[in-house]
């Protein structure tokens, strides 16, 4: 009796499920045309350019806001955006910008010199009435700015405390995006959830942990956006993101895991790839231990099979790095440098020349982290290569924040080598912060391996203060050649960012800046 009752129950449940699944079918219908749905890797922290540091959030911001300059499509060179032009004083400390006429913020207030001054004073002047609407974690991008002054209604002048060549490209970085002063005044701390800029899209709504919606700005000064709206969905788990893409729940997916790329090989999807300003390297402790000897540092560069790492571990989502500057900085990149070839024989002979055969090495590996790609398998591959040439490599693995807390204060007394990766917006940033002798950890820099070379110091200082781009490029190329030979790092990989779109999306391309410009992207 009980059994027959259960059977009936089962039948009823199965029937109900079938009916329910039938009625549910329309709910998972296709996404609407004209609305692009983007699968992001995380919920944005804020939509206030002042408050954010993550590429994930920048991808939304650059469609809502604009800066005085921007990166020319397909490059990392700057071109006018909200400024139509600029002049630089002879000594490189005064930048005067002419602003674009007739631009209004999404709230209807005009864009002018006073708005620009408001933005930079808010970030840099601790006594500014809206400085407390921060914090401004990346304000040091503009720490060279001494004052921002109005010349007239549509002209603004920045005075720097010293010549600082990366200033123009920092203005194109998301930290330099211009927000509406009226909206900051109206919303205060909540501005980050009610963003107002001048960009091709305006803010629609933010449903916490579900979606950020931005809509076409019909009053945009440039070409109107090709979609009616863009929806950014945070999907932290990459497998789930892949499943959403396959099921048609999202139209565009960024940061596809290398192992999932194969699932998008059909005609229904297209894969975009773009090398960016990223470099993945090993910091070598040049102060003590085996790596204090340049020959051993070079030996490590020869011993590690970088081709195998980018092709097998990273499934071709990166290229082999030749030096400290990524090739994405095309104008400053030294084309004549070839990566250290994989040559274990040469590595062994350099090691025996230096007399450190069988040396024990402590290797810091992180479990994850921004730009770190696949750090544990990469670390074990590196360990195997170094052991093959006779080192005894001991790996210590840390969670990302803990890892930074160990590595940034310097490797002295703790480790011989550590994984690291950087994404920057100017060829100045990384070498200036991580290769100068004045950037050792105790001086507040990131030179955690204590590399020091006077010639490199001089070149970097000179490149930072030269305002002529060709001159800067020459200095950076020379620096790259010296650094490659000195081998303070093992230069491993330059990441290629990827994205997948479905066949309803048109005109999509990735930018070397790793930002996501969606103005011209259409969806059918």
């Amino acid at each position: 009796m009980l059994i027959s009752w259960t059977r009936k129950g089962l039948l009823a449940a199965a029937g109900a499920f079938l009916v329910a699944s039938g009625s549910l079918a329309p709910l998972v219908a296709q996404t609407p045309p004209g609305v692009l749905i983007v699968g992001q890797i995380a919920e944005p922290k804020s939509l206030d350019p002042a408050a954010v540091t993550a590429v994930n959030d920048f991808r939304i911001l650059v469609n809502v806001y604009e800066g005085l300059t921007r990166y020319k499509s397909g490059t990392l060179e700057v071109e006018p955006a909200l400024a139509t032009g600029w002049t630089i004083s002879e000594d490189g400390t005064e930048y005067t910008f002419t602003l674009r006429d007739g631009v209004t913020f999404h709230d209807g207030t005009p864009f002018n010199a006073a708005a620009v001054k408001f933005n930079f004073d808010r970030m840099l002047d601790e006594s500014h009435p809206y400085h407390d609407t921060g914090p401004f974690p990346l304000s040091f991008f503009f720490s060279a700015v001494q004052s921002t002054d109005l010349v007239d209604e549509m002209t603004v002048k920045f005075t720097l405390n010293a010549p600082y060549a990366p200033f123009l490209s920092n203005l194109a970085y998301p930290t330099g995006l211009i927000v509406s002063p009226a909206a900051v005044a109206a919303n205060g701390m909540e501005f980050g959830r009610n963003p107002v800029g001048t960009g091709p899209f305006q803010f629609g709504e933010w449903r916490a942990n579900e979606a950020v919606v931005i809509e076409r700005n019909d009053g945009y000064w440039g070409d109107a956006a090709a979609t009616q709206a863009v929806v950014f969905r945070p999907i932290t788990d990459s497998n789930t993101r892949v499943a959403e893409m396959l099921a048609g729940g999202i139209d565009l997916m960024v940061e596809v895991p290398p192992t999932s790329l194969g699932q998008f090989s059909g005609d229904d999807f297209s894969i975009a790839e773009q090398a960016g300003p990223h470099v993945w390297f090993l910091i070598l402790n040049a102060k003590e231990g085996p790596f204090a000897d340049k020959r051993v540092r070079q030996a490590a560069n020869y011993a590690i099979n970088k081709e195998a790492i980018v092709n097998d571990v990273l499934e071709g989502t990166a290229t082999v790095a030749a030096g400290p500057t990524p090739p994405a900085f095309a104008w400053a990149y030294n084309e004549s440098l070839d990566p250290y070839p994989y040559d274990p024989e040469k590595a062994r002979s350099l090691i025996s020349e230096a007399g450190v055969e069988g040396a024990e090495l402590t290797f810091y590996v992180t479990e994850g982290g921004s730009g770190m790609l696949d750090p544990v398998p990469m670390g074990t591959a590196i360990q195997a290569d170094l052991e093959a040439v006779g080192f005894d490599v001991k790996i210590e693995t840390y969670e990302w924040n803990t890892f930074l807390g160990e590595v940034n204060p310097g490797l002295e007394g703790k480790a011989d080598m550590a994984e690291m990766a950087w994404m920057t917006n100017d060829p100045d940033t990384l070498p200036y912060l991580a290769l100068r002798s004045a950037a050792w950890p105790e001086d507040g820099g990131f030179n955690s391996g204590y590399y020091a070379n006077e010639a490199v110091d001089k070149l970097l200082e000179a490149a930072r203060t030269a305002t002529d781009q060709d001159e800067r490029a020459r200095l950076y190329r020379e620096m790259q050649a010296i650094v490659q030979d000195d081998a303070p790092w093992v230069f491993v990989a330059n990441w290629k960012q990827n994205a997948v779109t479905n066949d309803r999306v048109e005109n999509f391309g990735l930018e070397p800046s790793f930002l996501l410009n969606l103005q011209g992207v259409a969806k059918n």
Partner: protein
Amino acid sequence: MGSYILKRLISAIPVLLGITIIVFLIMSLIPGDPATAILGSYATPENVEKLNRDLGLDKPIVQRYFIWLGNMLTGDFGRSFSLNRPVIDEVLERFNATLILAGTSFVLCAMFGILAGVVSAARQYGWADKAITFTVLIGISVPSFFLGMMMILLFAVNLRWLPVSGMYAIYGGGDLPDLISHLIMPALALAAVATGVIARLSRSAMLEVLRQDFIRTARAKGVPEHRVIMGHALRAALVSIIPVLGIQAGFVLSGAVYIEIVFQWPGVGRMLVDAILKRDLLLVQGGVVCVAACYVLFNIAVDVAQSLLDPRIKT
């Protein structure tokens, strides 16, 4: 009974206070600080110090704890720096989502678990018992996140019956059918393990009761078998099943962390994981206090229910 509940509620206060102290201590003991988490590669000692000052993290830990405690008692849980919004808004929103998911799961696992246990026990060694025991073993053995991923592949990617992830459709959703269609897979995946555990324990509790004299008496009196099972035996077995439900409720709540990540459910579990990785102390505190309070309250409810069922248990 009223004074018993009140006593239990009062005794929950030191438990919750203790939890806040432990969380505060753990969060300050683990290496890495919020400023480093925010700044990432740009975390120079100088930048870190400035940002810590801006975030109010330069004060000693004891002082910070009491500031937090004082504020919390007035209903101010502080502001999450990683999400740039008041902690209480975020936690309540997220907690609501978790309650919907975990609550549904809990109802499912309690219902199916007890039912399966009863059927198994009533038909010991019969085909139903064997089928249930086998299914239950699978349910217990397969990790819930794996089960979730497989369900996504089958029902969302291949069959396209159900949406992959999220709580509501991005467009045209927001109503109850939409919520249910998003809830089915995560709730089932989350319920699987707990259902198995409850089924096994219900089965053994029922078997024990069925061997007792009063069951034989009931049968001898000619009470129909389904009333013997559902009325006499189950009622007696519930006394030992209900505490298991209380424990399983805790497992369902903690298991929600994985399921929320797989299904992108905007719940408190996923929030806590993110908050810990970003060293967002105030958000972790707010979330943990909320979850702990819920767990404590639920256990009180279980104890009360148990004492109602079994008068021998002293209140």
